[in-house]
């Protein structure tokens, strides 16, 4: 509750602050302070179970340890994102405080989408996430690619929103008691009625679109590539896991009992996502575009949670949210500073900036899923969840084979950094500062701590 309300309030404050504060440097500090306040307030709620606000939400929002932990992860990752990349957000354009305001609105949307208990709030949450993103994608106004990406994203997003609304309408009509409340559908375990089936498929399609699962991923590479890199970092990590969390909560709470009737669809989507994400990523020359495809590939792994829908899957999605976001945010933060976005742009980084190269290596190893990193634990829990589910065992084998393929494109960057000589200037104007490096080290330590002892995160679920 704290996170939803405070982030909305702070978003408004930042936006109005933009009118009065002309100094470009202030919004950054304002945003970090605001986020720290929200984070602390949220931790307080997580520990004491009491919100600062007592609002009667008529059961439209459900708050439990699971989603509180998730929001805490999202806030922490955003904080790290701000610390690493706030100075790059300043460079995107003149409306600095608006960018931060939009990010706060997205956080509000994610918190809402993580705690919804009715389809209406799910819809509102997803829309609050999406609309600021359309603006952020196009925030580099003079850049044609950014404009194209924003328009594409907006059109496709609007389309999927329509499908989602239609799905909600079908489900509302199909449930015995005409309800929006997801724990009150009373579907039973029998064969689902046609209306529900149509509604379910529509919801599946629209949410797959939001988390860029194949075959609804076509917008992703262009949008991620066209958007300013700092915002790509935010979109492909925090926003994506937020979407996933809503996806999983919806299907677990609303349709968990009839899982065997739609599980095969998830199998299809998972395999397609893994296949397209991994295979296409192999052929990319631009690191930014490669990361866009790798984010699709990682989404394939996260879909395993949706396939499994058990306790391990819940733990897995928390770990995945943290591991994937931390590593990708960290890596993007480095990428932003690099002059040349092709893989050759990384040549010789280890010699010029050994610390930065080491951090990048750990991030990439974590994305690959090598033990001792958080990425391993997240993949490990996902695989465990899928095996425990017991059905369609082969999907696990397929998933690990694709994980091995992912090593190919992540390691290309490691090879460039360590085993090749620098051909041209790596950092032009944007040399990593001492502060930046120390935050990178903090991120790296977090990744290793989670990798060695994942219960620091999932322990919160069982308090």
């Amino acid at each position, binding site marked *: 509750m704290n996170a939803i309300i405070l982030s909305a309030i702070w978003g408004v404050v930042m936006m109005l602050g933009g009118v009065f504060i002309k100094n470009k440097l202030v919004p950054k500090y304002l945003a970090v302070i605001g986020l720290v306040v929200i984070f602390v307030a949220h931790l307080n709620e997580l520990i004491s179970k009491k919100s600062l606000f007592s609002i009667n939400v008529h059961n439209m929002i459900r708050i439990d340890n699971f989603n509180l932990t998730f929001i805490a992860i999202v806030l922490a990752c955003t904080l790290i994102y701000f610390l690493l990349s706030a100075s790059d957000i300043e460079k995107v354009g003149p409306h600095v405080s608006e960018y931060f305001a939009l990010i706060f609105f997205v956080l509000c949307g994610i918190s809402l989408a993580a705690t919804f208990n009715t389809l209406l709030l799910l819809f509102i949450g997803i829309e609050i996430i999406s609309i600021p993103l359309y603006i952020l994608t196009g925030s580099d106004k003079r850049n044609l690619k950014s404009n194209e990406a924003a328009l594409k994203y907006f059109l496709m997003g609007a389309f999927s929103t329509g499908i989602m609304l239609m799905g909600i309408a079908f489900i509302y009509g199909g449930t015995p008691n005409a309800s929006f409340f997801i724990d009150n559908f009373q579907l039973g375990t029998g064969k689902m009625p046609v209306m529900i089936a149509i509604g379910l498929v529509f919801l599946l399609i629209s949410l797959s679109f939001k988390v860029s699962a194949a075959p609804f991923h076509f917008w992703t590479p262009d949008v991620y590539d066209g958007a300013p890199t700092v915002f790509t970092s935010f979109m492909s990590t925090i926003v994506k896991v937020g979407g996933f969390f809503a996806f999983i909560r919806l299907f677990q709470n609303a349709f968990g009992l009839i899982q065997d009737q739609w599980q095969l669809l998830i199998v299809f989507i998972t395999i397609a996502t893994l296949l397209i994400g991994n295979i296409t990523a192999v052929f990319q020359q631009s690191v930014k575009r490669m990361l866009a495809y790798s984010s699709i590939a990682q989404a394939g792994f996260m879909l395993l949670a949706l396939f499994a829908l058990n306790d391990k899957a819940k733990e897995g999605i928390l770990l995945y949210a943290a591991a994937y976001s931390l590593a990708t945010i960290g890596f993007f933060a480095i990428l932003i500073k690099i002059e040349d976005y092709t893989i050759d742009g990384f040549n010789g980084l280890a010699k010029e900036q050994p610390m930065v190269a080491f951090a990048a290596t750990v991030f990439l190893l974590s994305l690959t899923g090598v033990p001792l990193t958080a990425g391993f634990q997240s993949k490990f829990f996902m695989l465990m969840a899928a095996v425990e589910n017991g059905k369609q065992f082969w999907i696990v084998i397929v998933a690990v084979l694709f994980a*091995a393929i992912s090593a190919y494109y992540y390691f290309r960057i490691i090879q460039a950094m360590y085993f090749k000589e620098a051909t041209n200037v790596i950092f032009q104007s944007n040399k990593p500062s001492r502060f930046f490096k120390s935050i990178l080290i903090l991120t790296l330590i977090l990744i290793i701590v989670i990798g060695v002892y994942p219960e620091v995160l999932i322990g919160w679920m069982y308090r």
Partner: protein
Amino acid sequence: MGSYITFPELLILLPLFAGVVTFFVRSEKNPKAIALISSLMVLGISIVSLFYADNTKYLTYNNANYIWLKYLGASYYVGLDGMGRMLTGLTAVSFPLIFIATYKNKFKNAATFYGLMLLSQAGLMGVFCAFDALTFYFFWELALIPVYFLCSIWGGERRIQSTFKFFVYTFVGSLLMLVGIIYVYLHTDARVFEDGTVATHSFSLASFYHVMLSAGEQQWLFVLFFVAFAIKMPIFPFHTWQPDVYDQSPTPVTMVMSGIMVKMGLFGIIRWLIPVLPLAVQHYKSIVIILSIIGIIYASCIAMLQDNVKRLVAYSSIAHIGLMCAAIFAMNQISVQGVMLQMFNHGINIIGLWIVIELIERQTGIKNISEMGGLAQKAPALTILLVIVALANIALPLTNAFPGEFMMLSGLYKAKIWYAVAASVGVILSAVYTLNMIQKIFYGNTNTVTSTVKEISWNERLALIMIVCFIFFIGVYPQPIIDLTKASATYLLTSFK
């Protein structure tokens, strides 16, 4: 659990700590010294631990068990038993040998190089000590990553591709093994920790041994585990990464890989595969033996035709490992004991071979046998030492490999006569290519390249003499190692029945 630190922890933590420290040393000389001192300390600890080998009396010195992931039932559980003690002993002996033999080599970024070497030592120690599946898996990968960087940074000109091939092979293998571990884990019983927490399943080795799986499940699980171990050993047809990597890696790393890392696969089979999936072993054992024998003969034939001396040794190693793998699956006391003995011997001998080859390559800059000749006139001491090591590689009586290979072959003979006959062909072929190599490198006339070769320096001489001592000592009196590993072999066979 006592308040003191135990042997396995020391064996793992000391190199780990020394490795991390080494990274931050800013000089060329010091890392080398730190690495040597730490590896000698590890050797000392390993020797001391032999006096406490009796697990009935000194269990608390040899086992450390800490709760790691409560909800999952995983613990950080390391311990030493007979086989573990033998293999950690091999690791402890090999690293000082490697560091001494290459003491005069210059590596750029010495701090990183020696740091990574020590980290890989820690990983290897962990693999051989782990009594918990998750701990095992962690160390299994921890041993791989430093080696990947070592080969890719300091290797030959085609290092990046060949090392990456190696990495992908082993990564696929270990991920498949991970799936297998998860599946077995989900069928284990609940685990109750000392502090009263109960986890629904358990990763401990003991509960893996107790798990009941149907024959069908075991059969495909066997494939998942076996592929991982087969890639690591490697045995035919999973061996294609190996010659390239041995050829391209810097010699100290090649020594680590061929001397110790290949043992991880054999060790994995003995500790984690056969007792966990006995029914599947029954089902697959003849297939594995036949594959291994094909590998022995195939690798020996290629070795005979090789001109590149590094690749020759690589193929010879494939043949030797194939024999060990076949002997494990022959499944009788004498063959398994032979494997235990031979694991140690093979590690020592092959390091000796690499020392000599590296020396020749460094002095002459060539790897091809056909371009060499007449080295015996220039370096008589080197020749004598190499000939002894090479004879051990052929398993001549009085050398250490003889009792090992004899036991393995007689074990195979017990299983089926023609297994032993076919495997013996490999032994004969190994004599052909090894003697051929010696003849062409050391005898005959010198040419323009080889006439400049100097005699070996003190450090290489020291390392080789130590190896030769091992060769003769174990060749004459292999009993200590046989006694040490007897319990492990017996346990393996009882669990199988």
